[in-house]
């Protein structure tokens, strides 16, 4: 056993020095990618979603022909400004911790008379398929732009969800042994050319969390945090994360709490 270990260590050292030789090359690539992102920042198509979301918020929809304007997103009925910064949170009326998407489902059911199945159907848009959820999320998040994240873990259920979210973050499984932490648990890493935020570190977590939802240029869609988590688990080779499931909300709360104090700048524009 022992000699083998030493050989492996020597190997690792050699590999590291080879990597340094090319560090300069890598920097110029990163600079170019930075320029690319800057060029896109002015003129974010997410604005189209925000506008559609605002109309949907005010539109009388569903069997009860009611708007969502009386929906309590955590700061009182009808308060949209700043609501994204306090979510997920515990709601006494449902007795549950809810994130923005699950709270919207709650309101669509309670105020507009949709069934939960109807409210949760088609949570993510796609080519030629526009869905209300993406637009509502874009609009509500945009109303927190410039405001700091401040989620609570004071309530025992919030505390519990937070702890659970943290455990899920490190849960390794599937054929590839991946956990969220495999890609998002260390400083200064990237996958292909994409920088990976270390989501256990507040500075990185703030930068990452406050830029979702985001317009993904690769897909031409605004993607929500629920989508982000769903697609991360797909790439982790897990089964499909169910929309607004307990695990998704717990994980969101863990990430949001780690990003405490981060100033919202969403919807952002990303690769």
């Amino acid at each position: 056993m022992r000699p083998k270990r030493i050989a492996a260590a020597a190997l690792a050292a050699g590999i590291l020095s080879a990597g340094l030789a090319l560090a300069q090359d890598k920097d110029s690539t990163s600079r170019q990618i930075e320029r690319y992102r800057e060029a896109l920042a002015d003129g974010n198509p997410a604005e189209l979603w925000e506008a559609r979301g605002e109309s949907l918020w005010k539109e009388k929809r569903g069997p009860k022909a009611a708007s969502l304007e009386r929906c309590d997103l955590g700061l009182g009925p009808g308060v949209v400004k700043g609501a994204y910064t306090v979510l997920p949170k515990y709601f006494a009326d449902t007795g549950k911790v809810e994130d923005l998407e699950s709270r919207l489902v709650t309101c669509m059911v309670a105020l507009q008379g949709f069934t939960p199945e109807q409210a949760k159907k088609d949570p993510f848009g796609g080519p030629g398929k526009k869905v209300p959820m993406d637009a509502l999320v874009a609009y509500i998040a945009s109303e927190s732009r410039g405001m700091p994240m401040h989620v609570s873990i004071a309530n025992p259920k919030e505390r519990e969800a937070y702890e659970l979210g943290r455990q899920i973050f490190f849960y390794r499984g599937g054929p590839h042994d991946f956990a969220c932490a495999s890609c998002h648990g260390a400083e200064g890493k990237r996958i292909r050319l994409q920088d990976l935020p270390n989501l256990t570190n507040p500075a990185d977590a703030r930068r990452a969390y406050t830029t979702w939802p985001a317009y993904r240029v690769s897909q031409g869609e605004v993607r929500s945090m629920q989508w982000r988590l769903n697609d991360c688990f797909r790439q982790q080779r897990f089964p499909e994360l169910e929309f607004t499931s307990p695990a998704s909300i717990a994980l969101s709360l863990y990430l949001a709490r780690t990003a405490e104090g981060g100033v919202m700048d969403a919807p952002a524009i990303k690769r």
Partner: protein
Amino acid sequence: MKMGRRRALQSASGVAVMGLAMAAGLLRPSTARAEAWNKAAFEVKGSLNEEVKALGGSGATESKDISMTSPDIAENGAVVPFTVTSKLPKTESIALLVEKNPNMLAANFTIPEGTEPWINTRIKMGQTSNVIALVKADGKYYYTSKEVKVTLGGCGG
């Protein structure tokens, strides 16, 4: 890239119909021009000379009076930002061509007098390619070009 029947009908009879409409005073010339779409120009593949021909010119000269800015590396080919400025007197139009796209012409902007010869827009690139900014000024064609690396395919993904 076959056109649907409806489209083909439109382009076949388009010229005649518009002539009539103009004569009848139904359309002002500016409106009619706006609705023209040069189908042939959007079907040229990988040749600048052919493209210039399809646009009604003959040959293009490289010019330092055109500047094109874009990142050298695009993180995603689905959206690649370009800004083109022409300092050529009497600039009439600015076009963006991607050599290795299935059809090279992405967009052609007509710049009337009073409008700055400056355009900022975003196009798709299927792969790493030379990108050409083609400017028509005082009836002649000029161009500048640069290579843009695409790290992930933006077409068909």
